[in-house]
């Protein structure tokens, strides 16, 4: 097994971890699964850095581990502790069904990935492409089926991971500053979202976003 195929496997592992994340109603478990999946993607980035010899990828992988895999889950779990909400108050779609849907979506991702043109470098990247599309789907699924504000943030971050992985695969050589900027934006977004989650709990005494329907026509 070459290093490259190992990185492909890790990418798929990240996708599978995120599908598993859909299978839990416990918010802290979700965060853990998310953190592991992000770490896996960071690992993919690191491996790619090794394979391609692009040192700035290593930097990105490092930043990712620190910010997205460590700080964000920590920050969110602290918020969970503060507001004392640990479980989703009931999902829109039953949890097992959501997870199975995730698996099906992964299959669809595989089909879609096959349709994309190969990258110019010629490496067979079906695995990581599948993983990234699947991560996108899973994130969207998570956002759509979960009711708490924190789950939505996690879903959004999962989608972001998918995009990152995709950029890593398809668009090798994205400028470092862009990647860093994106990371910064994500960081700020999570901070703001966390603050607002806190505020939602204070104002509404729940963080169930399906019940935020005062503003409507």
């Amino acid at each position: 097994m070459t290093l490259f195929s190992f990185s492909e496997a890790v990418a798929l592992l990240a996708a599978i971890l995120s599908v598993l994340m859909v299978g839990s109603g416990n918010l802290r478990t979700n965060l853990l699964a998310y953190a592991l999946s992000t770490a896996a993607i960071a690992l993919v980035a690191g491996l790619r850095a090794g394979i391609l010899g692009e040192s700035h990828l290593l930097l990105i992988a490092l930043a990712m581990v620190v910010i997205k895999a460590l700080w964000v889950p920590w920050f969110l779990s602290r918020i969970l502790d503060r507001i004392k909400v640990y479980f989703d108050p009931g999902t829109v779609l039953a949890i097992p069904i959501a997870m199975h849907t995730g698996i099906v979506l992964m299959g669809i991702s595989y089909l879609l990935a096959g349709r994309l043109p190969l990258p110019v470098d010629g490496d067979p990247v079906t695995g990581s492409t599948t993983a990234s599309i699947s991560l996108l789907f899973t994130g969207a699924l998570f956002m759509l089926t979960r009711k708490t504000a924190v789950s939505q943030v996690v879903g959004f971050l999962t989608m972001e991971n998918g995009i990152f992985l995709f950029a890593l695969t398809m668009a090798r050589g994205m400028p470092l500053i862009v990647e860093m900027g994106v990371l910064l934006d994500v960081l700020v977004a999570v901070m703001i979202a966390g603050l607002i989650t806190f505020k939602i709990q204070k104002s509404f005494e729940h963080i169930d976003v399906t019940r935020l329907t005062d503003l409507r026509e």
Partner: protein
Amino acid sequence: MNEVGNLLICAFWILLGSAVVSAIANVRKPSLFAAPGLVAAAFLGIAASIIGFDKYLSFSAPPPFYLGLAPVAFNVDPLASFFLFLLCLIVLPVAVYAPAYLEQHKSSDGLSGRTFWPSLSIFVLSMGGVILAANALTFLLFFELMSVSSAILVASDIRALRAARAVIVYLGATRVAVVCLAVGFILFYLHSGDWSFSAIKAGDPACLPAAVLVLAGLAIKAGLWPFHIWLPYAHPEAPAPVSALMSGVMVKVALYAMIRLFFGCGVGSASLTLAVILVVLGGVSALWGVLFALVQIDLKRLLAYSTVENVGLIALSLGVALFGKVFASEAVTAFGFAAALYHCLGHGIFKSLLFLCAGAVDSVMHTRDLHRLSGLKNAMPFTMVCFLTGAIAISALPPLNGFVGKWLLYQGLLQVALGDGGVVAPALALAAIGVLALVGGLALACFSKAFFLVFLGRPRNRAVARARECKASMVFGQVFLALACLACAVGSSFIVSGIETIGNVNFMASAATACLDVPLVICILASACVFVYMAITLAGRRVRNYSTWECGYGALSERMQIADESFVQPVASLFRPVLVYKLAQKIEGRDRRHFPEVVSVETSMQSHLESRFYLPIIHLVEYLSNHLARLQAGSIHLYLLYVLITLVFLLLLGVYL
């Protein structure tokens, strides 16, 4: 720049200046600035239109002013001069009348007080602009300005929700009109590549959709059936001077645009369709308008519906003239054209007169409800004579100008019947003559009703005893217009020959009008009346005053007079299907046949057009809006789902297109 241009520019600045000054100056009476400004501008306009009557000029605004695609350009030609003259002629008495009216009407405080005068100046200015506009964009600029300023004027009594409703209906109708006009002008532009009116070939068969759209837009503004619904809402709510201007001039401006676009160089093979549309819409609106006018109980609403009638007559005349153009029949064109323009002038004068009279009554009695008015004959003698003049004129009775206009139309129709247009055109023309006769009879009934309910009979309302004639300036406005009615009739052959110069048509109509010789009729009738009156009074018989005949039962109560509904009931029940006329009687009591305790009769009517045509459209929009609003249900999951669905949709499009 010649003197006409200078006069017009002068008038423009005076109007703009008085608008700005009356808006900004923090004085008790903004009318002190605005009314003299309007009068001065009207004089300048009259001078310009008389001097410029036989001139063809064009000028445009200086360079920094530009409407994006076309300059702000104006054109002076005989047709425009004619309508400018009409505008200024009406503005003059209205400007004199308005200050006293507003003072008496107590609507000069709050928003209305501050906006009335600036809006009035802008309104007059924009009507002038529409008349002089030389290209589509200038036209629309002033057209919208005219609509908005008049809407603000209609909303003068903004506290009343009725006024708000009127403005909504009015602006809605105007918007649809502008949309039609805009689309039509754009289509014209795509054909000709030029925004100026002189390039528009409305008769070109390729431009037929554009021409029909423009016609529809103008018909909405003119208040032709079935687009007239805004008129009876907007006119009653506006202050009387504004109603006078709207009804007397503004609807004419739309008709003016029809003449400008469809007559000039625009006659072609497609003009026949336009002529048919005009004739049919004109005929129907004449009948419809006068029928609804007859059954109205609000004096100004009645006048508004009568405007629909008269606009119909003018459109009918235009259709006839267009027929003449299409079939190259000089006599038909001459009579039709003369009828249209003469009636524009005539109706402008007498409808303004009637609105001013109605305003005078309103300002004295504080009601326009015909149920609560009557017996003002002794309190307001001048207003009564002026209203009578207007009523005679608008019922097309000789010897006033209304008659001359209708006479020309009859002659035009007869010329169609005499001409060689197969069987259909003459038959239609004779049918139209029949309809006109019916319209004449209805108008007579309508205005005799309006006149007697306001002025004749015994007072129904105690306020009548306290009523006094309105202020001298208001009387002046009315008398001026009444005399204008008479002058217009006396000088009819002169005016008609002027109209023929405008239309560049055969001088047949003026010759015929000269033969009709209205002055002679007036002289004979007047002298005969004087003679008979002298004969009767000089005989010196005693005249004894006594109570009205009450069958010997003692004093009649003032309610024992014929009321509005009972007067029109025979006619209304004749036209029951059109008016959706219903009469609900209620007689209650233990022995209800002999000792009724409660007796009430209520009549109701409505317009099928509103209930069956316009309301469903509004309901459709509301239905769509309600259902769309469900999309915005507040759930963030739903919103996210929309994003994803859109994504999938776009991806499918991207893959398969």
